[in-house]
C-alpha cells in the first residue's frame, strides 16, 4: 500500500517537472528553494538563464550583496559540466529592512537569483547537462539562521524552447535587476556629511530616492538619505562611513532606486568620489507635497496665531483703528489692511532671514528666541507699558513721540498699520501654536528658500483676517459706528496691554532676578516721568523729558541674563539631560519630560491646567514616573538640539516614556495637554 502511494507520488512529481523545467523544492527550514530554468532545452553554443528560486516564510528575509548593518548575502556555488560558463547573479532590487536601530538590505517573499549560463558549442543534442548548485543564505526575522542546500538541475540539449512557467518570470526578474544606464553620479564628504549627487536622470518628477552601495563602509545604512531636487539632477545627503577615513576608491558603485512620476525605477550608478555634480538651482515648483503641505500648515498656523493670548492685545488695537476708518470710504480700510499685511510679511521675512543666517552660522536657534534675550523682553515690556498709558489717555495718539515704537503703532495711516503688523509678529513668536511647531521645524531643516516660503505662508495666514476685513464690506459694515464708546473701548484695551507687560516683567524676573527687574521698574518710572514732562509747555521740561526717555530705553538694554533662573514646580521635578533619561529608562522607570520656558504661554497654560494639579501629581506618584524639566527660558544648546531631534524649533514639547515603551524615542504628546492624555499614556 505504502509502495503504491510512493509510486503514485513519484508519477505526480515527474508530471510536474515535465510541465516546467525545475528541480524538486528543498525545505531548508525557513525557506524552500528550487532551481528553475528559463528554457526547457538549450541549444549548443546558446545561453540560458538559470535561477535559484527561494520562497521565504512570512516575516523572514534574506540579504542582498551588501547586507547592510548585519547579515550575510545569498551565496551560490555552481559545479558545472566542462565548458559551461556562468555569470554573476542578476540581483533583485533590495529593500531597506529596519530592525530597531539597524537597517539591512534584503528580500522578502519569493525572490529569484538568476545567473546566465553559456553552453559550449561542443555539446551534443540529446545530451543532458547536470547543473549542480550549492547554495547558502542567512535567513533572519528577529533571529538569524544560516541555511544551505544542494540541488541539481538536469537540462536537455536540443531546440531552445522557453519554459512556459519560469521563462517569463525569470525574464522579468532579469529585466528588473538594476543595470547601468545614463545616470552619472558623484560622492563627496564635507562637514562630516556625505553628499551624493546624480545627473542625467530621465525627465520627470523624482519623489523618492535611495542609494544602495555595493560595498560596506560607504555610507551609514541606518542614516536616512534626504532627497533634494535640483533642476539638473538630485542630491542625497547621508552620513559617511569608515571607507572615507580608511581611504576611498576613485569610484564607488551601487544601485540608485528612485520613484519617477510615481513609478519605481533603479539603475546601477558609479559615483566619482571627492567631487559633486552641479544639480542646478533648487526645484521649487516640483517640490511638491512636502513644501505645499508645509506652506498650508503654516498658513493655518498663522491664522490660529491670531487667537493666541499674547497677540490678542495688539490685534484688538488694530481692530480699534479699523473701526475708526471703517466708515465712509472703503479704500483707506483696504490700504490699511494691505499695509498691515505688508508689515507682517516683512517681519516674517526678516525673521526667516535671521534664522537662515544663524542656521548657516551653525547656531542653535528656535522659535521664541527673541524673548530669550532679557534686553528684548525689557524693551517690549516698556513698550507695552507705554502703550497702556497711551490707551488710558495719558498722552495723545499720533501727536508726540513720533519716533518711538508705540507712536508708530498707534498712529493712524499706512505706517501705523505697517508697524502694528511688525509688533504683532514680534509679540506672537513666543506662542508656538500647535500647528506652527511642525511647520517651523520642517522649515528649519530645509533649504533657505523653503524656510522663507514657509515663513511667508505663516505671515500670510497671520494677516489674513485683516485682509478679509478690508475686502469683505459686509464684515466691515458690521463693525460698530464710531462714538464716545470708542474712548472707553480704547481705555479697556489698555488693560490687556498692561497685563502683557506684567507677564513680560514676570518673565524677566525668571531671567535676570530681582535686581534686573528693579532696573526695568525704574525704566517704567522714567518713561512715565518723560510722558508727564512732555505735557508741560516748557523747553527745559522737554529737555528733561528727552533725558528721562533715553534713560528709560537705556536701562532695559543694560540687562543681561543672570544665572538665577527660578524653577517653580510643585511636582517633584529634576533637571532634564539625555543621560538622566537613559538612566531612568534603564531603571525601568517611566519618564515624562516637559520642555518649557517662562515666556511660553502654551506651556504655562498646560502647567496650570494639567501638570501642576493634584491628580497629575497623584498619577506620577502612583506610576513612579520621573518628571524631568528642560527649561528653555534662557538659550541652551543641548535643549535646542533635542528639540530639533524631534523636529521642533520651539516649546512646548512633551515626551513620555511609559514603562512598557521600548523605543529610544519617547512618545510625543500633543501641545495642548489634558489629564486624560497623560493618564492614557502613563497610567
Amino acid at each position, binding site marked *: 500500500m505504502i509502495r503504491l502511494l510512493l509510486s503514485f507520488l513519484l508519477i505526480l512529481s515527474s508530471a510536474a517537472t515535465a510541465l516546467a523545467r525545475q528541480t524538486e523544492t528543498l525545505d531548508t527550514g525557513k525557506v524552500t528553494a528550487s532551481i528553475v530554468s528559463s528554457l526547457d532545452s538549450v541549444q549548443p553554443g546558446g545561453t540560458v538563464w538559470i535561477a535559484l528560486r527561494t520562497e521565504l516564510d512570512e516575516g523572514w528575509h534574506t540579504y542582498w550583496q551588501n547586507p547592510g548593518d548585519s547579515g550575510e548575502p545569498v551565496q551560490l556555488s555552481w559545479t558545472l559540466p566542462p565548458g559551461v560558463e556562468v555569470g554573476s547573479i542578476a540581483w533583485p532590487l533590495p529593500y531597506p529592512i529596519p530592525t530597531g536601530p539597524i537597517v539591512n538590505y534584503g528580500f522578502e517573499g519569493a525572490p529569484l537569483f538568476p545567473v546566465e549560463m553559456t553552453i559550449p558549442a561542443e555539446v551534443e543534442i540529446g545530451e543532458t547537462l547536470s547543473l549542480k548548485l550549492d547554495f547558502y543564505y542567512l535567513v533572519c526575522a528577529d533571529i538569524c539562521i544560516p541555511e544551505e542546500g544542494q540541488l541539481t538541475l538536469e537540462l536537455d540539449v536540443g531546440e531552445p524552447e522557453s519554459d512556459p512557467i519560469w521563462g517569463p518570470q525569470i525574464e522579468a526578474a532579469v529585466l528588473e535587476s538594476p543595470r547601468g544606464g545614463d545616470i552619472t553620479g558623484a560622492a563627496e564628504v564635507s562637514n562630516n556629511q556625505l553628499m551624493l549627487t546624480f545627473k542625467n536622470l530621465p525627465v520627470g518628477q523624482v519623489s523618492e530616492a535611495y542609494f544602495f552601495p555595493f560595498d560596506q563602509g560607504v555610507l551609514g545604512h541606518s542614516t536616512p538619505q534626504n532627497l533634494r531636487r535640483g533642476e539638473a539632477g538630485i542630491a542625497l545627503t547621508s552620513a559617511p562611513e569608515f571607507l572615507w577615513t580608511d581611504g576611498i576608491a576613485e569610484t564607488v558603485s551601487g544601485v540608485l532606486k528612485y520613484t519617477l512620476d510615481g513609478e519605481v525605477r533603479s539603475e546601477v550608478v558609479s559615483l566619482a568620489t571627492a567631487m559633486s555634480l552641479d544639480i542646478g538651482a533648487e526645484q521649487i515648483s516640483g517640490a511638491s507635497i512636502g513644501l505645499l503641505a508645509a506652506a498650508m500648515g503654516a498658513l493655518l498656523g498663522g491664522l490660529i496665531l491670531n487667537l493666541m493670548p499674547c497677540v490678542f492685545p495688539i490685534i484688538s488695537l488694530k481692530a480699534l483703528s479699523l473701526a475708526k476708518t471703517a466708515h465712509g470710504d472703503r479704500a483707506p480700510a483696504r490700504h490699511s489692511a494691505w499695509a498691515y499685511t505688508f508689515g507682517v510679511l516683512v517681519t516674517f521675512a526678516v525673521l526667516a532671514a535671521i534664522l537662515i543666517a544663524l542656521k548657516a552660522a551653525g547656531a542653535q536657534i528656535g522659535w521664541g528666541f527673541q524673548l530669550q534675550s532679557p534686553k528684548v523682553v525689557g524693551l517690549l515690556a516698556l513698550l507695552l507699558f507705554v502703550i497702556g498709558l497711551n490707551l488710558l489717555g495719558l498722552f495723545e495718539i499720533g501727536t508726540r513721540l513720533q519716533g518711538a515704537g508705540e507712536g508708530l503703532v498707534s498712529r493712524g495711516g499706512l505706517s501705523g498699520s505697517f508697524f502694528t503688523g511688525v509688533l504683532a509678529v514680534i509679540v506672537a513668536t513666543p506662542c508656538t501654536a500647535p500647528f506652527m511647531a511642525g*511647520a517651523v*521645524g520642517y522649515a528649519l531643516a530645509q533649504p533657505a528658500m523653503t524656510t522663507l516660503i514657509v515663513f511667508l505662508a505663516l505671515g500670510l495666514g497671520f494677516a489674513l483676517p485683516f485682509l478679509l476685513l478690508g475686502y469683505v464690506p459686509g464684515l466691515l459694515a458690521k463693525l460698530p459706528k464710531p462714538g464716545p464708546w470708542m474712548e472707553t473701548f480704547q481705555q479697556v484695551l489698555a488693560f490687556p496691554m498692561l497685563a502683557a507687560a506684567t507677564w513680560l516683567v514676570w518673565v524677566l524676573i525668571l531671567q535676570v532676578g530681582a535686581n534686573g527687574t528693579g532696573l526695568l521698574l525704574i525704566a517704567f518710572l522714567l518713561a512715565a516721568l518723560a510722558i508727564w514732562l512732555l505735557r508741560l509747555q516748557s523747553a527745559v521740561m522737554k529737555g528733561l523729558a528727552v533725558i528721562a526717555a533715553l534713560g528709560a530705553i537705556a536701562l532695559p538694554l543694560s540687562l543681561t541674563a543672570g544665572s538665577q533662573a527660578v524653577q517653580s514646580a510643585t511636582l517633584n521635578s529634576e533637571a532634564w539631560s539625555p543621560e538622566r533619561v537613559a538612566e531612568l529608562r534603564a531603571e525601568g522607570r517611566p519618564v515624562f519630560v516637559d520642555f518649557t520656558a517662562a515666556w511660553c504661554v502654551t506651556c504655562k497654560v498646560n502647567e496650570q491646567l494639567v501638570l501642576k494639579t493634584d491628580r497629575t501629581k497623584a498619577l506620577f506618584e502612583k506610576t513612579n514616573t520621573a518628571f524631568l524639566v528642560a527649561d528653555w527660558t534662557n538659550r541652551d544648546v543641548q535643549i535646542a538640539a533635542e528639540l530639533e531631534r524631534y523636529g521642533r524649533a520651539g516649546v512646548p514639547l512633551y515626551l513620555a516614556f511609559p514603562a512598557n515603551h521600548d523605543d529610544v524615542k519617547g512618545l510625543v504628546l500633543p501641545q495642548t495637554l489634558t489629564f486624560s492624555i497623560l493618564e492614557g499614556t502613563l497610567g
Partner: protein
Amino acid sequence: MKTLFTATAAIAVLAFAAPISAKIANGTTVSDMTVTDSNGVQHNLSDFKGKRVVLEWTNDGCPYVQKHYNTNNMQTLQKEVTMDGDTVWLSVISSAPGKQGYVSGEGANALTRSRGAEPTAVVLDPSGVMGKTFAAKTTPHMYIIDESGTLVYQGAIDDNSSSRESTVASANNYVRAAMADLDAGRAVANADTAPYGCSVKYP
C-alpha cells in the same frame, strides 16, 4: 479642512522622521558610563584608565557568535589578550528581555563556564543603552579602547563574514592585529572595519 489636517499630519511625519547616527569616531575619548556585570558588580569605564579595554558584543544564539566559540577562536583570543593583566575584556550582552541572547546574570555565568570563555567580566545591557552609545550593530562587534580612554578600533573580529566554522582558521583577525599594532606603539592599521553577524537584539 480635512486636507489641511492631512497636510499638517504630513508635516509632522516629515519633521519627526529624523533619527541620528551615533557612531563614535575613532580617536575620540569614550565618555564614562557605569555598567553592571553578570555578578551584579558595577564598573565605570573610567575605572579601567591605564588599561586597554576590549569590548565584545555577544549573543549565544547567533550563528556568527557560535562560529567563534565552537571553534574556540574567541576563547583563545580572550586568554591571549587578558594574559598580561594590562587588558580588560568585557563581553557585552545587549539583547532585550524576551529576545534572542538575553540571559540573567546566572545564565551568563553558566555560559562562560560551559564555553570555557575568559572575559574579565560579562556586562549585561538589557536596556541597550551601552550598545546604542557605541552604535553596536552586530554580534560579534568588537571595540578596543586604549589606555587613555580613546577608541582605537571598531568593527568585525576578522575579515571572513561567513557563518561557516571552517572559515575561522584562515581568516585575518583584526582584533589580534590591532593589539599587535598597539603593543608596537603603532597606529592601528585597520581601525574601522565593517562588522558582520546577527543584528544586536535591542529592545
